[in-house]
């Protein structure tokens, strides 16, 4: 049986500007010890999906409209507040995007580290503190036994994210939800943080939901991937399927944005246009206005459901564009006349 089985999750925000359908019918499953990546551009509903699972959506304005999230036989979305508190920080933990604001500046690291242990385990302060120090050492914080007594502002961003990881894993949860754990950090630290998560996960057998907007990160770390756009899944499958053999035009476009996969010296590709405004009704396909493929029909009706392409590889079956050709053939060619690179600009100035 799956560890977590989410079906038809819908979460909206009732704002002055209208109803924001942040998550609009998302389903997926996750097995013990497995890593699921959720990718998508900003605003696609990745965070809201995660927060909904933990019922951390601020209500109002938010509301979980429908769906179930069966975790180990119990529906997280219909638990009493009391039961939910027993799951949070105990069997499911979370790491947040911004380590600078996610730790309480008024409390010592030690206090915050042992908090979940003291709530969920029958353990005295002394023993909890020892565990906290060990946990800090495991995520590579030097001088853990003295640093544990410091305050968050005495730690750098990367160090704080390590503290967050140690804090989330100190109760050895079954599931870790990491919402863009590296986005706020600089590139050199990003890889280290991902390695630490990976290492701890393997050691503890924890299942992980890793949210990121970087498809490249997913390829290296995840077993399965969900591609989100405008509150819905566009494609899902194993990391290999989604990464090397993307089907949906959106996934293909995303794949083209990975810098390391692009030809050296070529312009970095970015998807033109903006993600959809999910507070307005979406007709047919959310990606239609930005889709690079030849358009064959006016989008209309419900947004397409996921269909399976064998081996669990699913994609939103879009009928409004002709996506049969490889994406390279439909992307606009680089126009040699454009002054684009720094080299070009400098030469241009010299000539003027």
């Amino acid at each position, binding site marked *: 049986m799956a560890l977590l089985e989410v079906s038809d999750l819908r979460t909206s925000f009732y704002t002055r500007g209208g109803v924001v359908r942040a998550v609009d019918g998302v389903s997926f499953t996750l097995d013990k010890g497995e890593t699921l990546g959720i990718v998508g551009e900003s605003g696609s509903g990745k965070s809201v999906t995660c927060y909904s699972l933990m019922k951390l959506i601020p209500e109002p304005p938010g509301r979980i409209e429908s769906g179930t999230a069966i975790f180990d036989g119990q529906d997280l979305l219909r638990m009493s507040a009391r039961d939910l508190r027993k*799951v949070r*920080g105990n069997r499911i933990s979370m790491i947040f995007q911004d380590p600078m604001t996610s*730790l309480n500046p008024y409390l010592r690291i030690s206090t915050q580290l042992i908090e979940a242990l003291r709530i969920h385990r029958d353990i005295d302060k002394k023993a909890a503190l020892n565990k906290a120090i060990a946990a800090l050492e495991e995520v590579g914080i030097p001088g853990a036994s003295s640093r544990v007594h410091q305050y968050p502002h005495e730690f750098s961003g990367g160090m704080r994210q390590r503290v967050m990881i140690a804090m989330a894993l100190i109760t050895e949860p079954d599931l870790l939800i990491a919402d863009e754990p590296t986005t706020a950090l600089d590139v050199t630290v990003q890889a280290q943080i991902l390695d630490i998560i990976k290492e701890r996960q393997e050691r503890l057998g924890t299942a992980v939901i890793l949210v990121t907007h970087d498809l490249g990160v997913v390829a290296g770390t995840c077993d399965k991937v969900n591609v989100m756009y405008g509150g819905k899944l566009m494609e899902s499958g194993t990391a290999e399927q989604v990464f090397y053999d993307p089907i949906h035009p959106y996934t293909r476009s995303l794949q083209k944005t990975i810098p390391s996969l692009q030809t050296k010296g070529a312009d970095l590709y970015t998807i033109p246009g903006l993600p959809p405004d999910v507070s307005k009704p979406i007709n047919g396909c959310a990606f239609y206005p930005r889709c690079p493929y030849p358009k064959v029909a006016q989008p209309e009706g419900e947004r397409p459901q996921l269909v399976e392409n064998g081996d669990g590889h699913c994609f939103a079956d879009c009928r409004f564009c002709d996506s049969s050709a490889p994406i390279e053939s439909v992307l606009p060619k680089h126009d040699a006349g454009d002054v684009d690179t720094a080299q070009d600009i400098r030469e241009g100035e010299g000539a003027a």
Partner: protein
Amino acid sequence: MFRFVTVRLLQGLLVLLAIYAVTFFLVAATPGSPFSTERAIRPEILAQIEAFYGYDKPVGERFVTSVSNALRGEFGPSAVYANRSVTDIIAESFPVSLKLGSLALGLALALGIPVGIIAAVRQNSWLDYVPMSVSMAGICLPTFVMGPLLALIFGLIFELLPVAGWFGPEYVILPALTLGLYYAAYFARLTRGGMLEMLNQDWVRTARAKGVSESTIVWKHCLKGGLIPAITFLGPALAGIISGSFVVETIFQIPGLGQWFVKGALNRDDFLILGLTVLFAALIVVMNLLVDIVQVALNPRLKYE
């Protein structure tokens, strides 16, 4: 910590000296003299009186004597009430004002802070709307309206409490309410704001994700930071309560320092004015120092320096 307090105390002393100097020269530059009366006094007698109080010396010399006396705790005789020294007057009436002021401040904190916390925790419910509207009204009412209003309701209509004088514990209630309610309202609004800011922080979400209960989130995670605005306001609140007491003591006929201050100013009682000014200034300096110490204790990001 020790260094911090010493430095701040020395700074406070400098502030006091500056206040003393400004008050002294302002008083000296005021036209008229403490000794002018409606009846004409013979010049030689006036000269004698002036010599007794040191007013025959040049102003600079008088200032130096006055400061060195003040440093020894001597504020001289009252220039108007011949047989009493300023120190006597203070010793007699300070306890009265201290009782009134500390009750008012205590009331303000004891009422304002819990109300503010509850309003923040139950944001947008009637536990938020009702106290916040009442407190808005409280802030808008000046003391000289609130005082007579309370006296009218509790003293004259319901005949529950005395409205003037200073004879027993019940006499302090209306004046303390008049003085304290305004600051209770202020503290409630500041505490609500401070707590709301804390409750909306990302790290509250982190705490919830750890399974921390809502009450622990309030007490353990948010209270320290949430109280900072209210605590910062303690210094100005004390200053306000002192100046408010001038009005309240007059309305309720209370023999406290405030009344003496008003009398001193009206009578041109130079020594009394100086003595009281320094006392009030010293109170505010000490209060501000205490506030700073508490703030550093609450906020780990601040350091004693």
